[in-house]
């Protein structure tokens, strides 16, 4: 009988900080593309230059989402930036709606 091993993942929240190199490795995305995403405001790392850039954990998810939107829906970078902002706003509104919903 195999013993069930409890898998522990990395929580991708803002307590994690990644450098540009680390995050390109995790996301399997070219550094050039990462720079473009920063230029279009899709990512907002702390730091002035690419080698100083520090990304928070949730940037991983944002990058993956952006790449999916680009590849699947052929959206350009400004469009993706807008789409991500709007999707985040919709999530926020859904959350607020849930608080106002009637419970028992």
């Amino acid at each position: 009988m195999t013993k069930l091993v409890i898998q522990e993942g990395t929580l991708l929240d803002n307590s994690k900080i990644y450098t540009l190199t680390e995050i390109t490795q995790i996301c399997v995305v070219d550094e050039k593309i990462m720079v473009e995403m920063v230029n279009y405001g899709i990512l907002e790392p702390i730091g002035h230059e690419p080698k100083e850039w520090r990304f928070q954990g949730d940037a991983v998810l944002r990058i993956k989402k952006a790449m999916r939107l680009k590849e699947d829906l052929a959206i350009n970078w400004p469009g993706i930036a807008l789409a991500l902002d709007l999707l985040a706003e919709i999530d926020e509104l859904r959350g607020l709606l849930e608080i106002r919903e009637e419970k028992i």
Partner: protein
Amino acid sequence: MDIKNYYATLNVPEKATTEEIKRSYRKLARQYHPDVSKLPDAEARFKEVNEAWEVLKDPQKRAQYDQMRAGGWQQQQQRPQGHQRQYSEAYTENDFSDFFNTFFQDRFQQQQARTQDVHAKIHIPLKLAYEGGEQAIDYKNLKIKIPKGVLQGSQLRLKGQGKNNGDLYVEIHIVPDPYFSLHHKDVHLKLPITPWEAALGATIDVPTLGGNLKMKIPPNSQAGQKLRLKGKGFPGSPPGDQYVILQIVTPNAQTDKAKALYQQMATEMPFNPRAQLGV
């Protein structure tokens, strides 16, 4: 194997032009994209839409497909078994159905999976998110550790646990609780109180995720008022708060005495709550 109806999938008539099909495909792709749609089967529908477009956009494939639908279907079914087996051995899992893979997969086409990563979603109760613990997921029989205080929509990355050495991303969805609502780190609770507790004030027991607490209701409280229990929400630095929203519940006038008491209130405390409405 059943033949798929790609025209129906893309909401187009069989005589539609490629342009018309492309327009419909783009609209459906936007609608069902898993990052955009909240439908539970969005990913499956998105893949179906893509597969249909993959066939119908190519005049040759479309012609072959139309022939199959017209009645060449039986002949196609009689392909030698060896041919089919070759496909399933040569290629790893991709985003297309068996039907597509059998008849439309280009022989030497490198099917790139959209990603080698695997995305899974788990649904956990609020209490488990608050306390942390473990939960089994529907993938490779894995059991994963749920971090204490994990928030709605958080994702865990399990390196190398995806396909072909990709990663596994597990998205955590906290199921609606019958009593508490969670918004970011703050917990909201609708608290029913009696009219006398509201009017006179009271100290009452209030549930929180960490256990019951005594809370003071100030006198002359009104329905909808929010009271804050600082730090009693989800853990963190700083921790979230618990907001208690007062709901005043009036008991029914069941007995003659109760009715008399209500009537007395009406007489001794006349006031018009609808004055602002002009009635």
